[in-house]
């Protein structure tokens, strides 16, 4: 299928991009890698009148070591994230989740920023970003601000981005030496996650010192499994302790019933996958 007609502009600075989006108003749409947007346009589920191509904003590409955190440009492709040595060392959870995104071709084009701004609750990068306490830097007509991941995802396919505002960078605090696991469950390799669990743990002398757990597709936004984190923290990293903690995985979630699974099954999976994710993260630590 062919998208409906639109105007196109490819600004070369963030300011120009913001101006173009503001000028385009509600009918303007930003495109980065386009891996989420183009199928939507082809099916004519959306018909923007203006498409603002961000791909010339080279300032937004790449991973930078920025002291206690990594600053990842929104245009960094999934493939670049997968191969980046900083990410590997300091944000293993993000790499593991990125490995599971779609397929190699899509990872060559798709970007971290695009995936986060698209905010599909079944998308695999939202929960890791939430678990990592990442901060999302956004630039709009009112200037630049930093939004914690916990406040960025507000509803199905909806973020805190204001009209005309762009996600430019993702700041990911380093979790060096932590164990990590992204436990994804889908019906076939290509399918969206029914549920997935992002887990990162710091284990010292056999005791979980800190734990971060977040869930994919257990509600309209990614969900932080605070109950699991609390239950793990300070406990010995044993199978029993992990199991007990995982039992709290579904607290505060609001899973949907859809063609792939019902809410009851998702709730069950959240517990099982959390146990598996944490167990794997512990042995990775």
């Amino acid at each position, binding site marked *: *299928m*062919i998208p*409906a*007609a639109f105007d196109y502009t490819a600004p070369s600075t963030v300011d120009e991009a913001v101006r173009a989006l503001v000028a385009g108003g509600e009918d303007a749409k930003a495109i980065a890698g386009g891996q989420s947007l183009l*199928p939507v346009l082809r*099916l*004519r589920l959306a018909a923007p009148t203006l498409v603002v191509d961000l791909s010339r904003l080279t300032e937004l590409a790449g991973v930078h070591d920025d002291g206690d955190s990594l600053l990842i440009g929104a245009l960094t492709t999934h493939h670049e994230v997968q191969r980046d040595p900083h990410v590997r060392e300091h944000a293993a959870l993000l790499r593991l989740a990125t490995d599971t995104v779609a397929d190699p071709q899509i990872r060559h084009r798709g970007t971290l920023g695009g995936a986060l701004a698209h905010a599909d609750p079944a998308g695999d990068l939202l929960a890791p970003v939430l678990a990592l306490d990442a901060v999302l830097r956004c630039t709009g007509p009112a200037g630049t601000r930093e939004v914690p991941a916990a406040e960025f995802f507000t509803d199905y396919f909806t973020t805190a981005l204001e009209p005309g505002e762009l996600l430019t960078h993702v700041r990911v605090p380093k979790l060096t030496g932590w164990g990590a696991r992204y436990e994804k*469950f889908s*019906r*076939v*390799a*290509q*399918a*969206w996650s*029914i549920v997935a669990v992002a887990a990162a743990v710091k284990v010292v002398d056999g005791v979980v010192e800190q734990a971060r757990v977040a869930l994919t597709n257990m509600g309209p936004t990614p969900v932080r499994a605070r109950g699991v984190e609390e239950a793990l923290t300070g406990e010995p990293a044993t199978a029993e302790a992990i199991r007990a903690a995982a039992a709290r995985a579904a607290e505060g979630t609001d899973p949907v019933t859809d*063609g*792939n*699974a*019902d809410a009851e*099954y998702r709730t*069950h*999976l959240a517990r*099982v*996958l959390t146990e598996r994710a944490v167990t794997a993260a512990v042995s990775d630590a």
Partner: protein
Amino acid sequence: MTAAVEPEVGRARRRKEDARLITGATRWTDNIRLPGMLHLAVLRSPVAHARITSVDTTEAVRLPGVLEVLTGADLAAEQGSLPCAWPITEDMLAPPAPSIAVDEVNFAGEVVAAVVARTPEEAQDALAAIDVDYEDLPVVLDLTAAVADGADLVHPDLGTNKSATWVFDSAEAGTGGDATAAIAEAEVVVERTFRQQRLIPAFMEPRSVVVDPGPDSATLWSATQVPHILRWMLSAVLGIPEHKLRVIAPDVGGGFGGKLQVTPEEVLTLLVARRLGKPVKWTESRTESMLSGHHGRDQLQRITVAARRDGTVTGLKVDLLADMGAYLRLITPGVPILGAFMYNAIYKFPAYRFTCTNVFTNKVPTDAYRGAGRPEATFAIERIMDELAAELGVDPLELRRRNWIRHDEFPFTTVAGLTYDTGDYEAATARAVELFGYDELRAEQARRRADHDTVQLGIGVSTYTEMCGLAPSRVLGALRYGAGGWEHAAIRVLPTGKVELITGTSPHGQGHVTAWSQIVADRLGVPFEDVEVLHGDTRVAHRGMDSYGSRSLAVGGTAVVLAADKVLAKARTVAAHLMECSPDDVEFTAGTFAVRGTATSMSLGEVVVAAHVAHNLPDGVEPGLDAEATFDPDNFSYPHGTHLCAVEVDTETGRVVIRSYVCVDDVGKVVNPMIVEGQVHGGLAQGIAQALFEEAVHDEGGTLTTATLADYLLPSAVDLPWFTTDRTETPADTNPLGVKGVGEAGTIASTPAVVNAVVDALRHLGVRDVEMPCTPMRVWKALRGGAA
């Protein structure tokens, strides 16, 4: 003397077809661009059942590049009714099937308007500007509800949702006893209801049609697997003189039965091209393909087996509800009937009764999908044989051994009235058991059960046979099928000794060009490379019944043999004349005619030249060395095999992973083992996908919710296991090649093997069935005792 040449038949020849396919030098229908070509796009109903109260095209026709916008009313007089070639009973009910809906839509996806524009973009843009008003009618989706008293009706004019009821009873047919009595008197009775979910053929190449109306006669290119049937039917439906219509199937990217059809879009493209006097192309999107191309399966099967305590089966009863969808397409009603003869499978049932009720619903019409009726039948009987084995506490393989036809009992006439010519179920099963490591896996299964392992092991057995090589025309006639089952071939030996073979089969991935070349090369003693196979163009291959039902080799390949033999017979006459001997004294080996017991010989090449120049031919012999032949088999062919599947089921998540899959198939003699193995692999993939992944789902309003490849889950390379394949061989008696057919075998056998394995893994936990596809959630719910 030349050294003995290695026979071509039996060799794993690399395919001639590949050269253009791996370099992109392909000829897909959508590649065609003709001067002045226009583009057709169609608007489809978003609702499943409604009266069309108005179609407003005024805005659309004013858009740039739009030549014409057509509604059902515009074409009502000329579009005719799409053909159904298989009225299974005398009193079958068949509603008119317009290509473009006139007053009423009966499924979501049905065409309601058509746009012709200069570019595909302009055509698609114009669709959005057409305004259709619908008045909703009650939607009929569920098979059981559709046949209940007082049900809402898909076609109120018909007064019922039942299209036809078709019965086979072995007592009435004289092929066996009374199944109802056998069940009443049985020591053990097992009854189950199985659901064959709706599937989408999902060939990779979306359908496409190009029509050049021509000044004199029209040419239609279509991504079809049935160019000959298509020409015949289009002529009949539209009143276009058949000799003024040429149909070409160029490169066709898979079909699996899904391109065995006469489609609304083929009719519309032809009509608008003729109307405008310009070439027109229509190419579907994937979503359109899923919304409107025919679907497969969708049956509800109640099956009852009666047996003695020792495991001997004594009776079989099958009651089917088969979902036709909203209309009867080309062979829609006959698909379940193709299964009717297969429920008794490889077993010696003494009594059998089959009843099938064909039911209308407000869904896309169903029709042939790989296996067409036979996978459904095989699934039900193989599933229930496992259930009977469990009931009796015997190993499922042992139960099959007690009941199958032994190799020394062939030919064997079954309770369904078919005569199986050859087979050796013992040999195939023994080989499969050996490759699989059956006993070791059973031991591991016992250990895992004893250990309460969260991952349980299941072993699934499926033995099968199928009737293929469709088909003896007389049998098809008796079943009220509208066409014959013969196939045609023609051979032209050119003056330089090169050979053109024209076949009536219409390959779309099967490798006929290679396999037919092998057959001709052997038969005529010419090099493989010297044979050009022509097909898929009604002006070149003037007679044919096309490719489906694993028929091409058994029927079409045999026609090739017969044509080659006719060529040889004539060449022998010419050679004898030139060598001044009796034709009976001429021996033909490896391309050379020799006078027996002498040094006198002539090559085929020399004979060809002589035949062409015609300077010295025997009286009454026509110049040239061409021949054609049509083969109509006396019987079907009956491949069989034993498939064994081991699955690991994660009892915490319900996920099923195939750990190993072994199949040993007996497809008779093999022309090209590489191609045969490829066919088996592909068949397995589709059968496994039915068991685990694929399902066409509708919401309560009748909208297909799995209308993209993001929702209809085809397995990728990650989702399928490594297959271990092998063959045993009992040559077919029903054709000179001894071949049986392989296109559908893998699909037929694999689905029950997988589901039997899933149930076997969980039987000790109380699971008796899991509805297909066995999704993780369904498996998990079955384990919890909920609805599977």
